[in-house]
């Protein structure tokens, strides 16, 4: 018992902080709760201090947005690197599912997906690559959201540790945006979606298998695109009802993190009724129910009396439905089962993981690179062919033709036709231009300049089709943050992105951090990935096909 916190990945000083916050020893359930909430994944321990430097326009929502006329364009990127390494198809599929629900939780209909993919070059990587692409295709096509752009890159630095970053773009009238903030007490938490199983609960924070005694239970999350499609339609219908106050997807640390964060944002407490949660498996422990990462679930906050209408919508779409708690006065979270209070503690402690930022110095490899001399004396012609043949340069239609990039009939620029793609906002003369870019090598050689360059490249991609950049979302894929070199790369990269955004005068609307990406021997290349959204008038869109014989070609810039 005394070592449980260590097995769960909490550090000694964290355990001391918990005792201080609670004014007592945490019980077993609470240690599980903390270990999930304070995991790197949920708590952003190593990054949150630095992320404050980014020029954000929106705080504390499921996804950020920019405005085009009367519309909010909601967008966000998310990584599913580790799950895709373990089970490529499901890892990528559930990555799509998760990011779609983030955008959906803002009340937006998902209208486009983008995927930024990096793989190694060994045989295992080939299987991972194929699994990931068919996972994105299988899930994304089925839910009817077109995958319209992306990048596919191979390098040995990503052997055993692929990067699977997926971005979703959604569209909503700006006065119909939903929020995840609870505003009043005595409102009901309503669960809509698939049942809760033990999916993902050995994930991030539960490295040790001894814990449950029931060891070989796989924790792999399996995606159900049919339920996701139903959940999209149900959520959009539910959000139209009067008396629906807030909405949040259940992502990492599932019910616990979604409910507690909703209350926390509204300065409220909450009560959760464990007996009411729809379960898929028998004999689930309370911590398993709270932390399960089962897919395709949403949480709504509603006025009491609204239950019947919501239930009807859930049933129409073959989804489960339950009232699983309510907001209460005060600032505590209370977990209740069989009439017993199993835990009561301040939400602020749970959702505010201690920061682990520390300043670092320039690592030695940078100096070595700076002094390195490169061969510049080679045969231009053979080099030219070599570049054209390179797998990273060849046409990627064998990837994107597996994606339904046309569903919705809004895709004005399809993949392969330009450096950015465009989704039409029907009934207007505007389009949403999107692109996603990364460059691990540049970011390794110089994390600051390399990261700046990615933002600028994304902007060039948009400008090239006639669009004006409006904002970015960033996915920071890095190695182990406990390593000084990685921390330094991360900090410089954040500085570079911030600087580029300031120069372009565009905000970072949101993003995602993925640490602990390590290939066989060493950390992956530090790989920030930038998703950028812009605005374009549809009669001014430009693609890159040559139009007429005798048209002249100009080079601008130097």
């Amino acid at each position, binding site marked *: 018992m005394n070592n449980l916190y260590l097995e769960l990945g909490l550090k000694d000083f964290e355990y001391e902080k918990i005792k201080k916050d609670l004014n007592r020893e945490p019980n077993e359930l609470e240690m599980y709760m903390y270990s999930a909430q304070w995991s790197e994944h949920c708590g952003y321990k190593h990054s949150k201090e630095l992320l404050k430097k980014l020029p954000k326009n929106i705080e504390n929502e499921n996804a950020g947005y920019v405005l085009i006329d009367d519309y909010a364009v909601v967008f966000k990127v998310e990584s599913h690197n580790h799950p895709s390494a373990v089970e490529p198809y499901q890892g990528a599929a559930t990555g799509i599912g998760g990011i779609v629900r983030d955008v959906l939780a803002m009340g937006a209909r998902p209208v486009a997906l983008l995927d930024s993919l990096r793989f190694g070059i060994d045989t295992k990587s080939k299987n991972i690559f194929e699994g990931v692409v*068919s996972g994105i*295709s*299988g899930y994304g*096509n*089925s*839910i*009817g959201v077109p995958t319209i752009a992306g990048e596919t890159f191979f390098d040995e630095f990503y052997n055993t540790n692929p990067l699977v970053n997926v971005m979703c773009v959604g569209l909503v009238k700006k006065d119909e945006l939903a929020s995840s903030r609870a505003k009043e007490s005595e409102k009901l938490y309503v669960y809509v979606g698939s049942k809760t199983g033990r999916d993902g609960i050995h994930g991030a924070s539960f490295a040790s298998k001894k814990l449950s005694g029931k060891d070989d239970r796989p924790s792999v999350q399996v995606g*159900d*695109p*049919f*339920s996701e*499609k*139903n959940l999209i339609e149900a959520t959009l219908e539910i959000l139209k009802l009067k008396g629906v106050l807030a909405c949040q997807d259940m992502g990492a640390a599932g019910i616990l993190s979604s409910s507690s964060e909703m209350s926390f944002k509204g300065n409220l407490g909450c009560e959760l009724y464990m007996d009411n949660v729809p379960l898929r498996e028998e004999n689930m422990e309370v911590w398993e129910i709270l932390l399960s990462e089962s897919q395709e679930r949403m949480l709504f906050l509603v006025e009491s009396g609204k239950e019947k209408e919501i239930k009807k919508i859930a049933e129409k*779409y*073959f989804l489960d439905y339950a009232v699983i708690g309510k907001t209460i006065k005060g600032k505590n979270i209370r977990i209740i089962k069989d009439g017993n209070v199993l835990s009561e503690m301040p939400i602020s402690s749970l959702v505010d993981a201690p920061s682990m930022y520390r300043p670092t110095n320039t690592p030695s490899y940078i100096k070595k690179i700076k002094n390195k001399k490169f061969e510049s004396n080679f045969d231009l012609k053979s080099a030219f062919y070599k570049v054209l043949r390179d797998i990273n340069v060849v046409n990627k*239609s064998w990837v*994107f*033709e*597996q*994606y*339904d*990039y*046309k*569903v*919705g*009939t809004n*895709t*004005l620029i399809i993949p392969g036709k330009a450096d950015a793609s465009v989704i*039409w906002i*029907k009934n207007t003369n505007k389009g949403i231009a999107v692109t996603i870019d990364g460059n691990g090598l540049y970011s390794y050689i110089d994390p600051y300049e390399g990261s700046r360059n990615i933002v600028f490249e994304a902007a060039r991609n948009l400008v090239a089709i006639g669009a004006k950049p409006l904002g970015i979302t960033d996915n920071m894929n890095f190695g182990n943050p406990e390593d000084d070199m990685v921390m330094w790369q991360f900090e410089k990269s954040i500085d570079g992105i911030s600087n580029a955004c300031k120069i372009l005068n565009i905000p970072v609307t949101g993003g995602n951090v993925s640490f602990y990406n390590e290939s066989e021997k060493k950390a992956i290349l530090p790989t920030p990935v930038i998703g950028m959204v812009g605005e374009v008038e*549809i009669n001014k869109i430009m693609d890159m096909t040559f139009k007429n014989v005798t048209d002249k070609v100009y080079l601008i810039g130097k």
Partner: protein
Amino acid sequence: MIKAGIIVFPGTNCDRDAEFALKMAGFDAEYIWHDFKDIMKYNLIFIPGGFSYGDYLRAGALAKFSPVMREVEKYVEENRGLVLGVCNGFQILTESGLLKGTLTKNKSLKFICKDIDIKVINRKTPFSRYIKKEKLTIPIAHAEGNYYIENYEYLKGNNLIAFEYINNPNGSIGNIAGIYNEKYNILGMMPHPERNSVKTFGNGDGLEILMSIRRSLENE
């Protein structure tokens, strides 16, 4: 105005595409949820693409149990109007026995999304009567569009083949891209005419099919 009803099953995802294109083609279009039973007032029933019931079990297999499908049978039986099934709609029609044959996995085992050329084979049906072009460019987007029928000669001999692929993308027998029933009041096809119904999304060839349907219905 000619009234089109677009059937929406849980998992259908080309319903909005269909509405947009049908309106472009001059139809009065509305949605029909799969539980609904009164479809006789429509001149055209459009069964759109997507993944009804996730395409679990087999593509289109679970949709045939939705109440609306019994009505579609009646609608066809009583010759109330025309039925067009596209992609998943085609799969649903074969699974429910309204069209012959079946659609199985593409030869490549992969989903394929791209523009493809098809030849108009039978030009004498209400669906095709007013199509002017020989060859249409229409996008496909499917993983299970490989059409198979034991008795291919029967289809051929009875003029039930609607469209053939010029370059077969999925392994379909006889390059079949779309077929009719014997009464010529049902057309099932894998390519999506509704995705190329205006020039903005290609050359607008899909509109040829939808306009032919509308004009045939108007001239009845």
